[in-house]
Structures are given as C-alpha cells and as structure tokens.
C-alpha cells in the first residue's frame, strides 16, 4: 500500500487548487511490481520518482512571484541540509572519497549562475520554481550520472 505525503500535498492542493491532483492523492493504491527478488519484505513503501518528473507546471500571477522566490530559497536551504546529512553519513560509512560528489551538488545550490537564473525565470516568465528549474536547462548537465538537481526539484515537491 503506497500513501502520499498527505500534509504537504494538502497544502499544495489548497494553495494551487488542483482538483485532479487532490483526487489522485486522496486514494491509496496497491501497486503490483515486477518480481525482482525472491521472497517478500514488510516495510515502509516509498514512491520512487524520476528526478526530472515535475508533476505540475503552471503560470503564476506577477504578485505571486515574490512568494515563489521565497519558496525556492527555502527549498534550496532544505536541500543543502539534506545533502550535508547524506555527506556526513557517506563519510562515516565509506570514507571521504564518495562524499566529494556531494560537494558538487552543494556548490550548485550556492552557484549564483543557478540561483539567479531560476529567480529571473520566476520573475520574468511568471512560472513556478519547479518549471523554472527544469526549463533553465541546467538539469541536463548532470543527466549522465543521474545526479540531477534532484535535491531542489524534490524538495520543491514536498
């Protein structure tokens, strides 16, 4: 049984008045998957997302831009905290070498080229931050290693 993150989704539904989205998250679903391994496991069900799959792109009103920029900043900050936690965990488990890759993600989040471009798109194109991140074209840089700007994309959705 898979359940959606109902609290944050409820906020999204209220804020953006998305009835179709509301209907989707209101139901719980049994998911039949591919038999990838023998046996059964009981545990927490996690919905896996394609990092580039953005569930909603929409235009905003000019007066909403400031709030959306603030939401973007908050999400960047949250992503940074999550990445630092992952980095600390990696260092503890596997040593410093793999954690250097996390540095690249952290540097992207503080890169003015990235941050300023997203804000510019929100303010001038009047689109939501998720759409701005996708349309800015930076995600493709990391596409080969599947290391998209997933932190901020994902945090924006939660």
């Amino acid at each position, binding site marked *: 049984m898979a359940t959606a993150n109902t609290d944050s989704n409820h906020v999204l539904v209220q804020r953006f008045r998305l009835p179709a989205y509301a209907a989707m998250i209101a139901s719980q679903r049994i998911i039949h998957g591919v038999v990838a391994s023998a046996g059964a496991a009981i545990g927490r069900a996690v919905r896996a997302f394609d990092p580039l799959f953005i569930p909603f792109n929409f235009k905003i009103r000019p007066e909403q831009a400031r709030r959306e920029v603030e939401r973007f900043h908050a999400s960047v900050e949250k992503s940074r905290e999550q990445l630092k936690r992952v980095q600390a965990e990696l260092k503890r488990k596997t040593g410093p070498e793999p954690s*250097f*890759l996390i*540095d*690249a993600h952290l*540097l*992207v989040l503080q*890169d*003015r*080229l*990235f941050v300023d471009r997203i804000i510019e798109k929100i303010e001038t194109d009047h689109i939501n931050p998720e759409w701005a991140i996708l349309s800015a074209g*930076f995600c493709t*840089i*990391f596409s080969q*290693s599947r*290391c998209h700007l997933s932190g901020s994309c994902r945090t924006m959705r939660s």
Partner: protein
Amino acid sequence: MKEREIVIGHRLGLHARAAARLVQLSTKFQSNIALFRYDTGNPLEADARSILSILLLSAGFGSKVSVRAEGVDEDQAIEIICNYLAG
C-alpha cells in the same frame, strides 16, 4: 593579469567532482580566475568559482583550456590551478 594554456589531464575531463575541486581551489585565492576554451566554435568563458559555468565548458580529457588570473596572488593561483588541471 596572467594567462596560461593547459591541456586537461584528468581522464574523465572536468566532470562534476573535478569541477567541484576546482571551485574549492579557486576560492582560496583572492584573484579573479576564469577559464576559456577557444577551440570551440564560439569561445567559451567560465568563472572558476561557478561549478555550473565550469561544467558548461564541457572540457573533456585533452581539451585545451586557458586559465586567466587577475589579482594580488595571480602567480600562485595560475600555478596551482594549472597543476591541478594538468592532472
């Protein structure tokens, strides 16, 4: 201002991890440091403190890159950055 051309010696080119290390190195200097690629159709410029602009250079193994440093510690900056890029 100092400028020096260097051939990328990292086997995987300036990939994410190498670019991150370059940004970390560059921020240790006061000088402004920029990378240029003249071997593409349009010359490309990257700020050495911006990981995205470095990745957008798409400098693979064997690419020629010019490093330009301008500031009080430009000599040291050029030396260390070029040594790193040479691999």
